[in-house]
């Protein structure tokens, strides 16, 4: 099993043991669509690589009933898309993950890798945050369950401790008339990095919004949960003036960078626009289920 510097544990316990007891730099490998690029361009040179794809829990998709799912951190986009129920309950999460790269990248890219790579522009991260999913983390000191928005601290930085692995995502029960959506703005139509991403997850009671979680990506060092915007729309009938006010709250939450992909002013403006479009989609979906 142990072969020099490439390890392929079959259980979580083994993986945690290898990961926490290893000297030097150690990297977990899920789909490798970030890690291999980083190794290739010399950004990282791990002494040891631990492939976590052969661990059952990291590859499972479990339907817990009531719209709740447990999804392994290493499940690929292509395989999550083949599940017959996940995308009906969490279309926003699935569409966000499916936006990542081409079909070849989809064969490997995972939710766990997208989150733990900690890019501010990771597409599935705002959708995971809006869903209210908890990340299950196994480490040398046991298991903890952390809201996804607490995992990333900044570009390339997570609050995972030495030896800790994100093993699964727990998606909560679905209330009736609930759904989600994700939209991103990219300069091209395909295969590009988000300038702004926005995820909306809402529950409706008739035409009234009774619960909401809104998250933005690529407009701050980490993806953001925008409570202020959710507070404004909860209890409303999503009238235009309410949505305009919530869009402003989204804009105010942004702390974006200025770069060749988008200026600060542009990113802020677009975050409001995307929010208004995303909530429309989430609402239409919610009223259908």
């Amino acid at each position, binding site marked *: 099993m142990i072969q020099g510097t490439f390890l392929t544990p079959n259980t979580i316990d083994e993986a945690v043991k290898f990961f926490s007891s290893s000297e030097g730099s150690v990297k977990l490998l899920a789909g*490798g669509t970030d890690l*291999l690029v980083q*190794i290739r361009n010399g950004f990282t040179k791990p002494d040891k690589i631990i492939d976590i794809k052969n661990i059952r829990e990291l590859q499972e998709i479990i339907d817990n009933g009531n719209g709740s799912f447990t999804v392994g951190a290493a499940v690929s986009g292509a395989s999550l898309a083949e599940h017959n129920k996940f995308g009906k309950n969490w279309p926003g999460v699935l569409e966000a993950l499916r936006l990542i*790269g*081409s079909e*070849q*990248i989809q064969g*490997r890219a995972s939710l766990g890798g997208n989150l733990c790579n900690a890019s501010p522009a990771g597409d599935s991260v705002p959708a995971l945050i809006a869903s209210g999913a908890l990340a299950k983390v196994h480490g040398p000191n046991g298991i903890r369950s952390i809201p996804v928005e607490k995992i990333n601290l900044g570009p390339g930085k997570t609050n995972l401790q030495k030896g800790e692995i994100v093993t699964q995502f727990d998606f909560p029960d679905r209330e009736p008339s609930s759904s989600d959506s994700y939209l991103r703005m990219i300069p091209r139509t395909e295969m590009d990095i988000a300038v702004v991403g926005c995820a909306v997850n809402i529950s409706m009671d008739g035409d009234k919004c009774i619960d909401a979680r809104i998250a933005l990506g690529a407009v701050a060092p980490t993806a953001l949960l925008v409570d202020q915007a959710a507070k404004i729309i909860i209890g409303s009938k999503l009238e235009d003036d309410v949505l305009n006010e919530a869009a402003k709250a989204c804009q105010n939450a942004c702390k974006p960078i200025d770069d060749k992909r988008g200026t600060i002013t542009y990113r802020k403006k677009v975050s409001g626009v995307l929010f208004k479009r995303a909530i429309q989609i989430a609402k239409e979906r919610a009223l259908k289920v």
Partner: protein
Amino acid sequence: MSKIHVTTKINGEETEYLCQPYDTMLDVLRNQLNLTGSKEVCSSGDCGACSVTLNNRLVCSCLMLAAEAEGKEINTIEGMTKNGNFHILQKKFLEHAALQCGICTPGMLVAAKSLLDKNPSPTETEIRFWLAGNLCRCTGYDKIVRAVQAASDEMKEKA
């Protein structure tokens, strides 16, 4: 660093090799196994010239470690011709002039086959989306899409 011993199946044949931890599947296919059909163009997952299937899943072999193939099944462009006969997709690529320099072609064919295996009657939009990760600097894509459509039609007639 000690070498890693890998036992895998490539195009249906049991295959063994020794590799370094950082070697990609593409490195081993091309440099050790003499399977040079898969091309290396970008090495960063953008162009699809290195496309292979791993347990029937389309992936970029440049973004896969050779060590990961242990116990798995890999299919490359070399496995597409059966008993010296071209696959229908290969014939249609020739008939429709869906290649010029040919560098993207192996990856295109592997990707197109993986689409038709999963979805025998793709729409034009589905073909274009599926092949979005395969870049071609010569053909303008249209002839490639037509060739895949023609292959799909002929495969359905035969089935």
